[in-house]
């Protein structure tokens, strides 16, 4: 069963437009559109060059090295990989974490959520939302944001910096630290470090509340546009705590179908393959995971990430964020819950949740306990670690032999879970905005806006880093180039 617009019936007669690579999306992504003579979109695909080299690189390495080695998968959310791998290795050595160790890891993770969400929203996405999807490209970046909306830019930078400080004090460095080790963490927080972080947390919570207000205001001011933009219903999946609360560090898997029915709940992720399988499509290197019970990817694809988490959890255990969650769900009778731009709203609510959680953790004396590594227990061959990374569910799965060497690794990153959902989003945009219109840079940016709502960073899926310029190429039916638009790293557009 092919999905609408995934495959055109007669591609050979169509014009081809490639957006390659995406700007402000770290990693390597490419969008191709096939248009007929009337500029009607007949096919739209997001290709992500997923590089599975890392799983190979890890083979043969000692298991305790993995949490540090996998951090190099991503410059934006290394902590997520670090913790997912550490959780997997906790299982391998059969340990139970001492209470302080788990809380320090949680603190590290919520620091990561804070810095990553702030980066994603303020640095990479907000220029589109504040200046318009088809504003001049020079305006759509953090530099322009600092010039035109200095207060907002300052808040974003402040929140991100605080998150990085939390990471530094728990993992030793702002990026690529070493905090988590199998069985616990390598250092506790001193009372001085805790009071240092406590000093600013109230200002951070206030800044996060303002960020939520900002997205809410954007939704209120652009109701019709925001609710309709790349909007669709979909199945969704995330971890939830045992009582159904939002928990980004640990829990069981919950999946709800697009029609609202619960497919599974509190599922023990250590055998996730009973509920999730990965499919392949001939035109993409990236796998397409799906809910196993639904048979295949075309029927079983799902969404992960902030939007999924906020709509799936029963409540948020911190007061300000919980209040915002209720408003979000109630907004125009739930219209934001299916909107691709609803991701940004949900993301800011999660950022507030992260700040409130950090505040609570910093008051907990367990953070300073001396026992921060658990004793190794019964050894297991397999370890699965799952965490809710900033962009969604992240699965690390390893097999370790009796000599302590990794013999197999499988990683399913958030971007891969969202592969089909992102394809769906760009097809909506193609239909809504590009169909029958002459192509302009601004219209093409609509596609990138949709992708950026999920992910500014295809790097964890592609295992590559780097910001690249944008090249848009238009081909006629014979494959002869008709037009070429180049956008440099400075944001300037040129016809070449």
């Amino acid at each position, binding site marked *: 069963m092919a999905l609408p617009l995934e495959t055109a019936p007669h591609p050979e007669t169509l014009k081809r437009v490639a957006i390659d690579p995406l700007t402000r999306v770290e990693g390597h992504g490419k969008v191709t559109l096939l248009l007929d003579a009337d500029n009607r979109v007949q096919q739209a695909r997001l290709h992500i060059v997923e590089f599975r080299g890392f799983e190979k690189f890890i083979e*043969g*390495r*000692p298991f*305790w*090295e993995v*949490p*540090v*080695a996998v*951090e*190099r998968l991503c410059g934006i959310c290394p902590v997520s990989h670090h913790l997912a791998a550490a959780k997997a290795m906790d299982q391998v*050595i059969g340990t139970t974490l001492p209470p302080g160790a788990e809380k320090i890891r949680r603190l590290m993770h919520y620091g990561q959520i804070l810095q990553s969400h702030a980066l994603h929203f303020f640095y990479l996405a907000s220029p589109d939302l504040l200046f318009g999807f088809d504003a001049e490209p020079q305006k759509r970046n953090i530099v322009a944001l600092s010039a035109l909306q200095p207060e907002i830019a300052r808040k974003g930078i402040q929140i991100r910096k605080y998150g990085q400080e939390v990471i530094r004090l728990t*993992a*030793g*460095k702002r990026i*690529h*630290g*070493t*905090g988590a*080790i*199998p069985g616990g963490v*390598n*250092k506790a927080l001193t009372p001085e470090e805790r009071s240092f972080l406590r000093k600013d947390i109230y200002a951070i919570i206030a800044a996060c509340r303002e960020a939520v207000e900002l997205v809410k205001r954007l939704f209120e001011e652009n109701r019709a546009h925001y609710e309709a933009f790349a909007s669709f219903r979909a199945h969704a999946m995330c971890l939830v705590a045992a009582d159904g609360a939002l928990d980004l560090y640990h829990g069981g898997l919950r999946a709800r179908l697009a029609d609202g029915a619960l497919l599974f709940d509190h599922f023990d992720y250590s055998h996730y393959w009973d509920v999730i399988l990965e499919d392949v499509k001939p035109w993409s290197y990236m796998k397409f995971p799906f809910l196993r019970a639904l048979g295949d990817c075309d029927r079983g694809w799902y969404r992960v990430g902030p939007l999924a988490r906020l709509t799936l959890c029963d409540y948020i255990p911190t007061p300000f964020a919980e209040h915002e969650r209720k408003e979000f769900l109630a907004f125009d009778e739930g219209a934001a819950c299916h909107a691709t731009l609803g991701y940004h709203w949900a993301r800011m609510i999660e950022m507030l949740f992260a700040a409130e959680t950090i505040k609570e953790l910093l008051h907990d004396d367990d953070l300073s306990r001396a026992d921060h*590594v658990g004793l*190794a227990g019964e050894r297991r061959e397999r370890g699965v670690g799952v965490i809710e990374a900033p962009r969604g569910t992240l699965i690390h799965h390893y097999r370790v032999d009796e*000599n*302590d*060497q990794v013999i197999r690794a499988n990683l399913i990153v958030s971007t891969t879970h969202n592969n089909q959902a992102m394809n769906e989003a760009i097809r909506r945009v193609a239909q809504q905005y590009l169909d029958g219109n002459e192509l302009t840079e601004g219209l093409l940016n609509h596609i990138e806006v949709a992708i950026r709502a999920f992910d500014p960073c295809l790097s964890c899926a592609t295992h590559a880093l780097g910001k690249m310029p944008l090249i848009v190429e238009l081909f006629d039916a014979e494959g002869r180039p008709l037009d070429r638009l180049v956008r440099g790293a400075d944001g300037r557009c040129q016809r070449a």
Partner: protein
Amino acid sequence: MSEKTTFWLDGAEIPFTAGQTLLEAARRAGHYIPHLCWHPDYKPHGSCKLCTVKVDGRFVSACTTLAQAGAHVENRTAELDDMRRTLLQLLFVEGNHFCPSCEKSGQCLLQATAYELGMMSPHFDHFFPNRPVDASHPEVMLDFNRCILCSLCEQAAKRDGKFTFVMGGRGMRGRRVILNSESGRLADTDFSSTDHAAHVCPVGVILKKRVGFAVPYGQRRYDQAPVSLLDVAEAIK
């Protein structure tokens, strides 16, 4: 016999006793001469050449050359440090040194010396040799990807009356540490995790298992001070 005599090291007067090498005397006097294969507990054998100094215009290894009264020794000159950087770069490309995911990072003499000498890039093309990990022993793992052929493990094993590690092979790619067992695996040698050899490796080859990364940033050996300070501090105490 005159007990105390002196030589000149980069313009400083260094006292020494008869039989002391340039490196030993310099260290005692608080002067760092870069070194990798030298270890205070073992006989110097002068293989890495990082300690190369100029004595009255001639290149010699400071770890094997005896101090001579009145000699003029150049040590931390731009010329010598430049050559030392090249030696380090050659070592980095010859093996597989991925400092970011290496548990010895922050406690590794090779890395610390590269920082000390301001090595900013590997400069040469990497060899990317294929050297599998030997994890056969229950307590200790060997990752020869990081071996710098200093031969300290060989000497440390001999101290325990063992021949667990033996330097063998020839040539740039052939020279390596050979394990003394039929299978060539550590588990089948007479090695024990209490041997001197278990603790001697200056880089991340011979490692106690399951404790990697337990020392946080800020508390690792070379987080305290650069190698030039730690090295002489240890000589004096």
